């Protein structure tokens, strides 16, 4: 087998991932090929040196802290039927109630305005405005005052 093909297999050879037949072919070639042996050695050294890196130390109480986080997340999660159903339903109810109350208030207001207008209209038709006071500082007011004084002199209270 040629060196190029062998060198492509060296990585899997190091990882023990070749079939037994493939492994035997590689080993047979390595016996007679110093160049491929050198390539294998370089690859192995680069792979082995990764062991230099330390492993992390598992902290104690990992599970306790994990459980605590889960509980916290559970508490902050919205309770499904309360917040997803009841709260929106209540909010909708308040809005509907507000609309109904608002409608009721505005209707009463309209009726009161209408009745005042009708009253005024009736008074006008009966010429009851004739009995209204004279506007301030008018000749009518002055005449009425004079008339009041005359009546008072005759014993009538204004």
């Amino acid at each position, binding site marked *: 087998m040629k060196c190029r093909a062998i060198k492509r297999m060296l990585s899997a050879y190091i990882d023990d991932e070749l079939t037994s037949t493939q492994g035997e072919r590689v080993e047979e070639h390595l016996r007679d090929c110093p160049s491929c042996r050198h390539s294998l050695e370089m690859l192995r050294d680069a792979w082995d040196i990764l062991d*230099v890196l330390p*492993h992390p130390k598992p902290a104690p109480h990992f599970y306790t802290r994990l459980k605590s986080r889960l509980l916290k997340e559970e508490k902050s999660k919205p309770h499904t039927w309360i917040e997803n159903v009841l709260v929106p339903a209540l909010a909708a109810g308040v809005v509907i109630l507000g609309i109904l109350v608002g409608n009721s208030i505005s209707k009463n207001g309209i009726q009161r305005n209408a009745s005042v207008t009708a009253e005024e209209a009736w008074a006008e038709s009966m010429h009851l405005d004739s009995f209204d006071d004279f506007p301030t500082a008018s000749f009518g007011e002055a005449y009425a005052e004079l008339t009041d004084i005359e009546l008072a002199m005759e014993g009538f209270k204004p």
Partner: protein
Amino acid sequence: MDDTELMLRVKQGDDQAFRQIVETYHKPILDLCFRYVGNQEDAEEVAQDVFIRLYKAAHRYQPKAKLSTLLYRIAVNLSLNRIRDRKAKRWVSWEHHRKEDEKRPLSSETSQPDTVLENKEKQKMIRDVIDSLPPNQRTAVILKRYHDLSYEEVADVMRCSVSAVEARLHRAKQNLKKRLKPFIP
């Protein structure tokens, strides 16, 4: 009880089964996360995220893949997310590291022997070399080298073919050989 049975119990709400899973896989998952994020604190946090994700998804569990494969897959994804988030906040990290560097005593001021410091420097450089690998190669290296998964298991975690794993590891080893040459005696 095997992992599938345990996980089916977790699906039913069995907390003891969940605890058993956590205790079995805490160390390898922490190790995997550590290889990506590079520090204990972040690795612990991401490892917790992995188990929280598993717990929350338990109701949808189907015993199609091995539990270890699922856990590794979640761990790889969350670790990569953490690295991406960190890169996005790089200026903060740079500031943090600059301040940390200022706090760190000079080698002449420390009581640690030179060999310990040398080892730490060496470790840092080797970690940098691994971090410099393309993501797929780095993941394949971490899963194979530090967790001794078979090519088939690595392929399951990475959702690729076995030949793709083989090619990635071959290229990764070539890259490591080149970049780690100064450190090889």
